[in-house]
């Protein structure tokens, strides 16, 4: 344990209070060097405040933040070796793209020829070669995003902070940028701390994810761990969709009142009366709603006690006409017991 490498960022007992409201509540977290680390949570969960504490735009009410072992709490932003890609890009509107990207080097008094060379390299990296003379107002949203990224990376920071950088882009562009961002991170090899409320984005890109809720971290782990083994009801519900089963219903299905979650894609729909295996759980109900989503269909099934479960099925051979006709049909739901995830009273 003593030879463990120094983490890129270490939060120890960090809290940030706004009046009575705990935006960040006793955060303890290590982010490793070279990691693509995502802070995932709904709005108001404290993830952006946490990022601002690392950048230095905000200071913690209490606790310590270490950047590669060096205390940074209390330091202004310009004395920290981290840079930020802002949600709405925050490009300097009166400067050209080249001046924007080269700003950090100009501040560091890098001579102009070298500056221009590195700006060109950076624009190459973010796939915007030859746009140095344009003004930010002449660029599209996706291009501005790339300029913001180039500007933040050119000073070779040890940690890059990204505050919902893809939030304003359309779905196709967002998916493309997710792949590119991950590629750039692997290329430059520095720590990326990425804030998002989009669980799919978090699962796609991250090495590890911290799920935030009400200023606290609910769970830290790899995307697969977070998705397959959610620790709390909140994580199970926020990352993907989950059916939460507790109390009397849990007792009926599993023979134990222990609450558990089950993913909609793990449940199979069969006809009532079909045989149930020894290692399987079963429940009977009626389809009360059908949503045709193209790739798959989502069914809402009402059980005898009035609770509802969500079930999804891939549209392997079915057509929209078939699935729509399923409305009102009685069904038996069957799933393997091993997919049940016991949930603490989060």
């Amino acid at each position: 344990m003593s030879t463990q490498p120094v983490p890129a960022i270490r939060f120890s007992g960090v809290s940030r209070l706004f009046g009575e409201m705990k935006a960040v509540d006793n955060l303890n977290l290590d982010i490793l060097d070279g990691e693509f680390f995502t802070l995932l949570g709904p709005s108001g969960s404290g993830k952006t405040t946490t990022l601002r504490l690392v950048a230095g735009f905000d200071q913690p009410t209490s606790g310590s933040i270490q950047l590669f072992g060096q205390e940074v709490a209390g330091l202004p932003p310009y004395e920290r070796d981290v840079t930020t890609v802002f949600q709405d890009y925050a490009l300097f509107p009166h400067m050209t793209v080249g001046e924007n990207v080269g700003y950090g080097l100009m501040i560091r008094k890098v001579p102009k020829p070298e500056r221009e060379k590195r700006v060109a390299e950076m624009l190459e990296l973010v796939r915007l070669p030859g746009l140095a003379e344009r003004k930010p107002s002449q660029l599209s949203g996706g291009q501005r995003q790339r300029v913001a990224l180039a500007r933040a990376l050119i000073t070779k920071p040890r940690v890059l902070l990204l505050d919902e950088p893809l939030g304003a882009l359309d779905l196709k562009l967002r998916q493309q940028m997710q792949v590119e961002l991950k590629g750039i991170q692997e290329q430059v090899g520095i720590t990326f701390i990425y804030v998002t409320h989009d669980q799919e984005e978090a699962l796609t890109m991250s090495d590890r994810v911290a799920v935030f809720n009400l200023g606290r971290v609910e769970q830290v782990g790899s995307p697969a761990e977070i998705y397959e083994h959610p620790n709390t009801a909140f994580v199970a519900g926020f990352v993907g969709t989950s059916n939460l089963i507790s109390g009397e219903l849990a007792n009926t299905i599993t023979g134990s009142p222990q609450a558990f979650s089950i993913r909609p894609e793990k449940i199979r729909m069969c006809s009532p009366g079909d045989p149930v295996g020894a290692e399987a759980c079963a429940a009977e109900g009626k389809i009360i709603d059908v949503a045709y989503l193209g790739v798959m269909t989502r069914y809402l099934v009402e059980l005898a006690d009035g609770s509802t479960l969500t079930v999804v099925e891939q549209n392997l051979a079915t057509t929209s006409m078939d699935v729509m006709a399923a409305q009102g049909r009685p069904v038996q739901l069957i799933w393997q017991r091993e997919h049940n995830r016991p949930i603490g009273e989060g």
Partner: protein
Amino acid sequence: MAATPTDFGAAAPPDSFWRRLSTFFYRHKTISLILLLASPLLLLVVIYLGSLAALLVNSFFYLDGFTGQIVKQFTLKTYAQLLQPANIDIIRRTVVMALAVSVADSLLAFPVAYYMARYAAPRTKAFLYFAVLLPLWSSYLVRVYAWRLILAQEGILTWFLNVLHLNGVLNALLGLPGIGGTSLGVSPLGTFIVFTYTWLPYMILPIAAALERVPQNVLDASGDLGAHPSTTFWRITLPLAFPGVIAGSIFSFSLTLGDFIIPGMVGNSSYFIGQAVLAHQGTSGNLPLAAAFTVVPIVIMGIYLLVARRMGAFDAL
């Protein structure tokens, strides 16, 4: 999924004259626009541009010294008259004053506007906007008269400086050639003080508005990239707020160029452009020269705006 038939048309209101009228205007956007702009356009074109044209035409006539009649023939004699040393003096005096007032106003206004836009809590900010606008509710003449009393030889300012034993400083200032005089009330320095005071609100408001439009995250980004607050101010805040400074200086500069009341009431007997216009069109009846004098501020403002544009003052707009 069988569609449920609903008769949406049943909800439409009955056909009326007003309804058809609105539909007509909705379909004919040009006609609505013409109706909307007719009265202001009429006023602008006929009265405003018309008088400007009349002014320009008049400046190419000239006054016959013998007969005292205005000769309505195209000539450049009036402009030749305008370029006589005495008149050049008037123009130079006015332009220097306008420049000095604009610089002083922007230096005074910027800190106030910066505080209003970036630091003041909402209530303080509302109060400050109110306080800046308040003087504009009283007549400009009343305020100039008040300054006459403040700056007079036996006025409150001289008395106050005496109490502070600073009258030596005042006398030294008044002794300076070019800006001094027997008292503040009759010196160019006094004229400068009153001009600066009078146009200050017109400088504070556009600068504050420009500073409020500078997004916080752009300033954050500058600090994030390693810039100290002073660098951020010079590289980001000031360039982004500069159109506001230019807008304010357009007010202070052009208002000073045309004013005849302040130099008439506070200052020595040297003319400013406004006073020259007043004198030529009134007592001496030299309407062409008055018109030529009026063309001067228009040309100067035109050049000023062009230079400002060249310097990139409007790039951030």
